[in-house]
């Protein structure tokens, strides 16, 4: 589902702080109340969305991995690829189901929490999201069932086709959601109708292919591939550490390390291009990421760490590399760079969140690069399966993709504040007329239910991962199982046996 309105949880927008007039108590109280409701609405949306996105980000990468595994099996006829395919297909099915369950909530969160946004932007983002729903629906009703249950029923060729369609479908799903999000980041091709709704003025291609769309789509897809590679690598590393040194475990670890070595550098390059694009279209976001409060006429430094202080418009206790910021952003160490103080104060995003989430993402990307390089080094020395330190690093980095992806989304979504639609509609204007206590109670309910329900699911996935893939990995669990209506025929035979 989509990544849209305000993802930041801890920030009170400056626009809002300024509206409470000190002279009028009743009005001031009302403003404080609205402010709390807005903050809670954003927290709830952020919570349900971050929780939801864990699953699709893994789904996208895993679907492609499964297609690769099955393709290799068909080409080489080595059964270890089939074993790996079946091993990961079971994990895929559970992950997909949790994505569906948490996704249903998302299709209602826009209305419950952002009703004014839904009314006004519905004519543009609604159809894009509807296409995502149709695609996911189509996938689930169609090829997923064949992929998970149908090898015996349809034959390997058609089955491979179904797997490829699932992989393609997850990417198409991402296409639509990123299109909706990118339009909110860099809106274009719209006009207002008589009901003050945003409406396409130059056709749908203009709405879909906004300036930030290609960068965001590629960056997100690669993030999913890398996330999956890190999970697969961590599972492989775990079994190597435990001494389950089988050909299947070796193969999955090796494949994952190739991905880390090849894709992590590509992702860093794509991220850089995405950043340059953002500097062009949403400068405030990049300035917040960099912590550049003041303009730098002779080239901006690169602030590595520090404590952003928006009230004093400065980064305290900072460690910086002179001129490196301009070198990265302008490819010239002495190129002048704006500062946030050049922009109106009420257009600043919450700098500390953006600053830190960006550093978390970049820091983890650096570690991923190191892991990839380490694996290349181990490969050259013939120690890929025996170097314990590498395996431990790969194990620890297992969840890094999820954390980095979340941090990246927090950077881009919080960096868009105080707007839902950049420079056009503010988050404060978008919120539903729901009082704070209601939103607060439902947020707590969501938190309890999500932790109870999804921790059980994640726990089950972890238990599956704790077993190494077997030679002749069974095709299916021996219980009745389902995938949106397609026959689990083999499962039924298994259930009888």
């Amino acid at each position, binding site marked *: 589902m989509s990544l849209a309105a305000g993802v930041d949880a801890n920030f009170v927008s400056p626009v809002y702080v300024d509206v409470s007039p000190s002279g009028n108590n009743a009005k001031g109280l009302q403003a404080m109340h609205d402010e709390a409701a807005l903050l809670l609405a954003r927290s709830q949306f952020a919570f349900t969305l971050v929780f939801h996105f864990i699953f699709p980000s893994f789904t996208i990468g895993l679907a492609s991995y499964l297609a690769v595994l099955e393709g290799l099996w068909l080409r080489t006829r080595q059964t270890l690829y089939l074993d790996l395919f079946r091993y990961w297909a079971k994990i895929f099915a*559970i992950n997909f189901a949790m994505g569906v*369950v948490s996704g*249903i*909530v998302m*299709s*209602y969160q*826009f*209305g*419950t929490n952002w*009703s*004014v946004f*839904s*009314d006004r932007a*519905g*004519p543009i983002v*609604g*159809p894009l*999201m*509807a*296409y995502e*729903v*149709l695609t996911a*629906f*189509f996938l*689930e*009703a*169609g090829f997923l*069932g064949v992929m998970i249950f149908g090898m015996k029923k349809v034959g390997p060729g058609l089955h491979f086709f179904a797997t490829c369609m699932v992989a393609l479908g997850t990417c198409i799903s991402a296409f639509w959601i990123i299109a909706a999000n990118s339009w909110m980041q860099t809106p274009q091709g719209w006009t207002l*109708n008589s*009901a003050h*709704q945003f*409406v*396409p*003025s130059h056709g*749908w291609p203009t709405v879909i292919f906004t300036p930030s769309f290609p960068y965001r789509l590629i960056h997100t897809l690669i993030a999913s591939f890398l996330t999956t590679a890190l999970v697969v690598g961590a599972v492989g590393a775990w079994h190597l550490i435990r001494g389950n040194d089988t050909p299947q475990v070796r193969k999955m670890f090796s494949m994952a390390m190739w991905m880390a070595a090849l894709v992590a550098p590509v992702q860093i390059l794509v991220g850089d291009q995405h950043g340059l694009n953002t500097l062009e279209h949403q400068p405030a976001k990049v300035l917040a990421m960099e912590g550049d409060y003041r303009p730098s006429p002779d080239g901006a430094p690169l602030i590595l760490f520090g404590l952003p202080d928006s009230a004093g418009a400065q980064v305290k206790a900072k460690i910086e590399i002179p001129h490196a910021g301009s070198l990265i952003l302008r490819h010239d160490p002495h190129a002048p760079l704006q500062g946030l103080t050049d922009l109106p104060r009420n257009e600043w995003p919450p700098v500390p969140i953006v600053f830190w989430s960006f550093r978390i993402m970049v820091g983890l990307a650096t570690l991923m690069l190191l892991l990839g390089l380490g694996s290349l080094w181990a490969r050259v020395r013939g120690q890929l399966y025996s170097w314990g330190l590498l395996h431990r690093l790969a194990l620890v980095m297992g969840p890094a993709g999820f954390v980095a992806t979340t941090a990246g989304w927090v950077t881009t979504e919080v960096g868009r504040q105080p707007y839902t639609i950049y420079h056009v509609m503010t988050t404060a204007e978008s919120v*539903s*007329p*729901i*009082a704070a206590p*209601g939103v607060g109670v*439902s947020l707590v*309910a*969501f938190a309890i239910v999500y932790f109870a*329900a999804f921790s*059980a*699911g994640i726990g*089950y996935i972890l238990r599956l991962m704790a077993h190494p893939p077997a030679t002749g990995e069974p095709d299916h*669990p021996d*219980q*009745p*199982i*389902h995938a*949106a*209506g*397609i*026959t*689990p025929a083999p*499962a*039924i035979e298994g259930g*009888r046996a």
Partner: protein
Amino acid sequence: MIEPDPTLALIWACIIAFAIAAYVFMDGFDLGIGILFPFFPVGKERDQAMNAIAPVWDGNETWLVMGGGGLLAAFPLAYSIILPALYPPIIAMLLGLVFRGVAFEFRWRDPRHRPVWDVAFFVGSTVAALSQGMILGALLQGIHVEGRAYAGGWWDWLTPFTVLAGLSLVIGYALLGACFLLWKTEGLVHEDARRHARYLAPLLVLAIGAVSLATPFLQGHYYRRWFAWPNVLATAQVPLLVIIVAGLLFWSLAKGRERAPFFLTMALFLLSMAGLAVSIFPDVIPGRVSIYEAAAPGVSQGFMLVGAVILIPVILAYTGWAYWVFRGKVGEAGYH
């Protein structure tokens, strides 16, 4: 095209009505089995009841996403008024469905905690059904709108009428679930399902009667819709048909038929929906906002129609095929 287009609005109203109806029919019996779950003995009976719906439930549930996503895209104004107005029951429904969904998955995979997941399955199903009925009831009794936004209070959705509507839907789903088991199972669970269906059927007819009698007095224009001359000649057919179908249902249960009760219960649902349409069409928020006012601009509805026309038939074909594959009776270990 940047303003609503009446033809497209009507087409989309039909598509969304169809998605909601498909959801009610298909997830209705899933939820019904969840509602009846504690009344089946622990062990093989419960396994068999769950097996009967295991292959289809999540496909069924996806129609709800179509309903929600479709409403946002095709009728954004309605979406942005209804969801804040019915915030508590909608959130309760979603959380109930989350519980129901994961209970399905983990009941099998985590036998040690099976009693916990059984409770989650029952509570999730019942809360979801009750909430859906209350959502419908609250929509029918009217929503306070000012400008383009909900202007009522936090508890507007909770009235005796909405409680009646909620309980009615719980009874209706339970009957649908019992009749589905009657059709799809054999042995002990089949006998239990018959016992439940025999008292649930008259209860449902009573509930339909109570809701139908209350509805015309909720808003003045409902009364005129139903009772103004000569409308009454047409509208009177709905309750008449309800009586006939109810009679057939009682007869088929008494005769021990296995398949007919399910389809007759579905007919009762269909007639209730027809009654609903008589009351509110062409409004989406009764008495306040019509489908023509709430519609997204023609350029948006037209764009989506392309995808819907291609994909919905494919989805239906797949769904039909899946039900065909699972057409037999379910055994203890799954479908034969």
